[in-house]
């Protein structure tokens, strides 16, 4: 960089860490790096992301991190408090190691929280954008069909769908995906409605843009970020909904448990051994919060207006 490296708009010196994109080589990677940097500068989002990566790695390597299997009962040490020798986080009312159960249960909880939200987000985004872009008959067909799903209470419909299939993680994922699609589709549809009358759409047409170009380059990028942010706020909630399904016997079956089911199980011994309830509950809370922080960070990183330069 040359010596008087001033910001082109504010005439203030550039932050030392920021190299102009044009000096970083090709455009797309530089732009991606730019967005990553913007995300990283958001401390809360960065901390949340690191936390979630740690949780994810721990859950994946559960057998390595825990000396016990989640179903292995130590009948001599029921409801052992945290810090007990051999059981770092104590045991539950059947003497099963809490650390092992939290790690293995996290596998289910994270899958149920993340996978349906992403799948439903993509499907809903596509449907909503198509409905808002083409309007007319396509709009009516897509949105009215989704209204049928939307008319049922979310959890009730998930129970109905899961109840019609064999219990298991896949069932949970499918049930939650289906009930979430209309939420995303409506959001995407509304956001598309806001973008379509913008003069830049007409300008793009006047510059010879085809419908496909306008859809992918002009509509989608402007609709994407609210959908992503909404998705991250739903992930925590879906962990809880998934737990509800398991609690009703429609999701994972005991003795396998996700965090929500652990909370439910622990309520019986809440006074005697509060850690059995509090630990998984705390994890649900913190993981949900982390997803929300990441959502904020992603929104800021995706919106060019909030890129701090």
């Amino acid at each position, binding site marked *: 960089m040359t010596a008087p490296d001033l910001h*082109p*708009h504010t005439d203030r010196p550039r932050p030392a860490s920021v190299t*102009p*994109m*044009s000096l970083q080589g090709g*455009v797309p990677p*530089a*732009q991606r790096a730019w967005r990553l940097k913007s995300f990283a500068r958001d401390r809360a989002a960065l901390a949340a992301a690191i936390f979630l990566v740690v949780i994810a790695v721990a859950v994946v390597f559960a057998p390595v991190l825990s000396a016990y299997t989640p179903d292995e009962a130590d009948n001599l040490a029921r409801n052992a408090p945290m810090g007990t020798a051999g059981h770092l986080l104590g045991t539950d009312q059947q003497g099963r190691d809490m650390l092992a159960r939290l790690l293995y249960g996290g596998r289910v909880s994270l899958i149920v929280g993340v996978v349906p939200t992403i799948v439903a987000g993509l499907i809903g985004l596509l449907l909503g954008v198509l409905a808002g872009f083409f309007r007319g008959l396509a709009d009516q067909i897509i949105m009215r069909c989704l209204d049928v799903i939307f008319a049922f209470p979310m959890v009730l419909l998930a129970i109905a769908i899961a109840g019609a299939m064999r219990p298991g993680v896949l069932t949970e994922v499918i049930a939650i995906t289906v009930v979430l699609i209309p939420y995303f589709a409506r959001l995407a549809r509304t956001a598309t409605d806001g973008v379509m009358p*913008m*003069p*830049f759409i*007409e*300008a*793009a*047409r*006047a*510059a*010879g*843009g*085809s419908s496909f*170009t306008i859809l992918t*380059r*002009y509509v989608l*990028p*402007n609709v994407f970020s609210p959908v992503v942010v909404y998705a991250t706020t739903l992930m925590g909630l879906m962990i809880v909904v998934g737990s509800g399904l398991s609690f009703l016997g429609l999701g994972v079956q005991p003795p396998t448990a996700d965090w929500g089911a652990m909370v439910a199980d622990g309520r019986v011994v809440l006074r005697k051994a509060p850690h059995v309830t509090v630990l998984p509950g705390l994890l649900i809370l913190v993981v949900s919060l982390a997803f929300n922080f990441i959502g904020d960070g992603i929104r800021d990183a995706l919106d*060019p*207006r909030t*890129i701090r330069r």
Partner: protein
Amino acid sequence: MSAAQIPSLVVENLTTRFGSDRDGATVVDGVSFVLTPGQTMALVGESGSGKSATALSLMRLIEPPGRIIAGRVLLDGRDLLTMPERGMEDVRGGQIGMVFQDPLTSLNPALTIGRQITETILAHRDITPAEAERQAIDLLVRVGVSDAARRIHDYPHHFSGGMRQRVLIASAISCAPAIIIADEPTTALDVTVQAKILRLLHDLQQEMHASMLLITHDLGVVAAMADTVMVMYAGRIVEQTDVDTLFHAPRHPYTKALLACVAGIEDDRSVPLQPISGMAPDLKDLPRGCRFAPRCPLVQDVCRTTDPALRAVSRSHSVACLLVQEETAVV
């Protein structure tokens, strides 16, 4: 100006209607004109007179419930109104470049300006993205964006209104169009910036020997930029002539009234400006006879019953007024 110029665009009887046959409004009503290379034609009129609808009709960008119900738009001998949509996409941005009114909202906020210009180039030219980016930088330099190589990576919100209009102009001329349509290109800009943008448009048009259709309601802009002028009122062309004649010997009462509304810097301040009385007619409920009759200071009985057609009063001057006779007569 050579008299035997080959026209770049011929518009015949262009008619655009919004709404149904029974309950609707004909916003562009039988508009005909010819654009010549290297020449600027101004289209003036008040809000709602159909200026922008005319431009959008040329580009076939009228959205339902609007539709073009009659006319021909000939470009290189092909009628744009019957062309398949794919061919039209090549014309838009390729042979006809358009500059819009509001530079603040006419750029996609989610893409860098470099991407937006290269998108247009790549849609029309068979070149590599790297080459398109180089051309985009050249274009930005040409329209006066300093430090263009760096600034193509900036987003629209990093630019001021005037700079964004420069970017839009760069995009409009990126494929060296034969025709530039500028729809009130300076309306949203500061007065000081307006002059610079107009100068830029004029220079580029001369450089490329392109035709320009300049839509405006600002007669000052017309005087500065145009070679020929069309005055539009309630969807019709009411007077069409060269710019000198328009300002020095206007014939249509509406044109005269428009000119009387404009304050000149040397005008006698004690003489009040003359607003045009009344309102532009409702296009859904047009008066019988002349559309300007209800507001016309010279109105006669015949004006209320007979609809005047656009007639030539001299070789380069047409007027749609029953009271205007051939050149020698005085109104």
